[in-house]
């Protein structure tokens, strides 16, 4: 057991930090509910950091670290599927990669910018490249860009099955866990900065114990979600379910508190809070949501 980052991991993450630092300008809130940081997304792809999980020296735990770091920023990019699922389960699929679970007629995040879609169902996993005309825009209510497939059955018909669908599922659960924990951490950091700065009643809001304790409780849940995802990276599908379920379960309390403590400012499109909380709100139900993952975890743990 050694829970420190390896030197290789630390070096890779410093590359990620440098890319994020260079790209920080264009994330300024633009008054839109949903957004996509295309330049940052392209820079991450070009740097190769999204492929790390596929190399033995790195593996999925490194992918989790990359996803968590990128998702802490308010920039919406397609990182979880690309850094965790694609390198190991469908390396030939182009990216950005949208993940469509269950009913293929549903609206799906990242479809407007995706060059491929991964279909996940109880029956298996397959992927299909996309052309711009393959999608119909829908309102991006949850901070992510979203679309529907114009002809879902045709896409499914031309999809390539993943060689190891169980692996695709495990990694998809891991991707949800990593993305959710990263997004919640980013939102927490933003709110901690706000309440440390904003004064009411003659003192910073962050000195009130009511806020301190709830933010500390949020931070505990987020830390646990982060570490459950890291532990699940090299683990079983049950561990991935546990990590996804735990992170999704945390969203309710954390997203509530983050909005509470940001006050009215957090409801504006001038402040980036929604870029974290609305991503988290959509992630809650991903792949079936916490209740389903917990149920499946229990059923597998105690057959």
């Amino acid at each position, binding site marked *: *057991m*050694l*829970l*420190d*980052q*390896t030197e290789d*991991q630390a070096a890779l993450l410093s590359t990620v930090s440098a890319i994020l630092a260079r790209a920080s300008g264009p994330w300024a809130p633009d008054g839109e509910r949903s957004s996509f940081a295309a330049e940052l997304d392209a820079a991450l792809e070009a740097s190769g950091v999204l492929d790390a999980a596929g190399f033995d020296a790195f593996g999925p*735990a490194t992918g989790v670290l990359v996803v968590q770091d990128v998702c802490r920023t308010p920039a919406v990019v397609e990182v979880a599927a690309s850094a965790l699922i694609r390198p190991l389960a469908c390396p030939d699929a182009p990216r950005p990669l949208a993940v469509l679970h269950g009913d293929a007629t549903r609206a799906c995040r990242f479809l407007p910018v995706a060059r491929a879609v991964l279909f996940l169902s109880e029956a298996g996993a397959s992927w299909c490249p996309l052309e711009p005309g393959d999608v119909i825009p829908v309102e991006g209510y949850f901070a992510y860009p979203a679309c529907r497939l114009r002809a879902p059955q045709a896409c499914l018909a031309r999809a390539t099955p993943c060689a190891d669908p169980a692996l695709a599922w495990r990694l998809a659960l891991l991707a949800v866990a990593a993305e959710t924990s990263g997004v919640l951490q980013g939102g*927490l950091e933003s709110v*901690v900065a706000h*309440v*440390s700065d904003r004064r009411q009643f003659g*003192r*910073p809001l*962050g*000195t*009130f*114990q009511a*806020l*301190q*304790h709830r*933010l*500390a*409780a949020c*931070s*505990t*849940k987020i*830390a*646990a*979600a982060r*570490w*459950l995802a*890291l*532990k699940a990276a*090299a*683990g079983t599908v049950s561990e991935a*379910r*546990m990590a996804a*379920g*735990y992170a999704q*379960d945390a969203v309710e309390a954390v997203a509530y508190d983050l909005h509470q403590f940001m006050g009215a400012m957090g409801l504006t499109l001038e402040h980036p809070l929604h870029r974290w909380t609305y991503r988290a709100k959509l992630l809650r139900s991903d792949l079936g949501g*916490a*209740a*389903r*993952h*917990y*149920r*499946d*975890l*229990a*059923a597998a*743990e*105690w057959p």
Partner: protein
Amino acid sequence: MNFEWTERDKAFRAEVVDFLARELPPDWAAIARHGPGSKEQTEFSLGFCAKLAAAGLLVPHWPQEHGGRGGSVWEHFILGEEMWAAGEPRGPQYMNVNWIGPTILRFGTPEQRERYVPDITAGCAIWCQGFSEPSAGSDLASLRTRAERDGDGFIINGSKVWTSYAGLADHCFLLARTSGQRKDGICIFLLSMATPGITVRPIPSLVGNGDLHEVFFQDVRIPASAMLGEEGKAWSLITYALANERVGIARYALSARALAAMVERLKADGSWRDDIVRHRAGQALAACEAARVLVYRVVDQRARGLPPNAESSLTRVAVAAADHAVANFALDFLPDAFADDSIHLLKPHHERAIAAGIASGATEIQLGIVATDHLDLPRS
């Protein structure tokens, strides 16, 4: 980053598990039912810890010259995890091996070591911890028990409360004040509970009879040699002593064990087919594993020699949450099992779960530490 146990760790865990399978008697369930702080379990610990000592498993993490094997931080932790999962058959003696013994070894005089350490390593010493007072709970620095100089000794006057194991303890690790205010002027005294002037009164409680006590000190005369460390400088010493305790006991190990026993019952009675029951079981299991992974994170930092930090407080919040998730699962789906006492460790788990967020530093104290020292929120 790797979450794999080394072969040595695995072998050590197997050794502990084998020992427990071999040495826990058939009536262990009946003893454990009273809880780790109970009179029954304290008495049981005397024979059991002697056997642990003989097997080299009482203080494996201590240096060899003091009866240990020089084991790793992880081995110390694996031992605690397996013991707590079994219901803590070491009873009060877990304190001896975790912090009382190590503190005496580090700060004690040669006479103090000679006097106290052999019984600890033999598994036959019962200590109690005299810290909390009626007006000094979370705010321990407000303690008022006095130690007045009197010739070549001290006279102790005051009272302690919630003192676990005091009814059967041979010795007390006592905090008393010789002077000063708050953190200044506090001293540690190692004294025999048989010293004239000490009165112990049990407090009937929800956590197993014989656990909580009041201890009164009336003109208790002790020699100056009973003082551990420097006069008035106990605060930093306690901080050192309890640094190892900060992550707390491996409570999630018992929670997970109790949860598994509950699931067996639910399977037998057919309720396990219910999706709601399985959802809640998975949620409780995830809470236990969340606590476990955060504890491992803190142990890993300790194993790497990093200084203690507020992550241990964060971890304790998760550990208490896991206890409560499992306790509430039992209340929701197995209330009858409390009446017929038919699930091993159900009651002791439930009772310790209530205490988890209070004993050795309330959850709210931990949340405060996380807020200021981990999140860096401004102090009021």
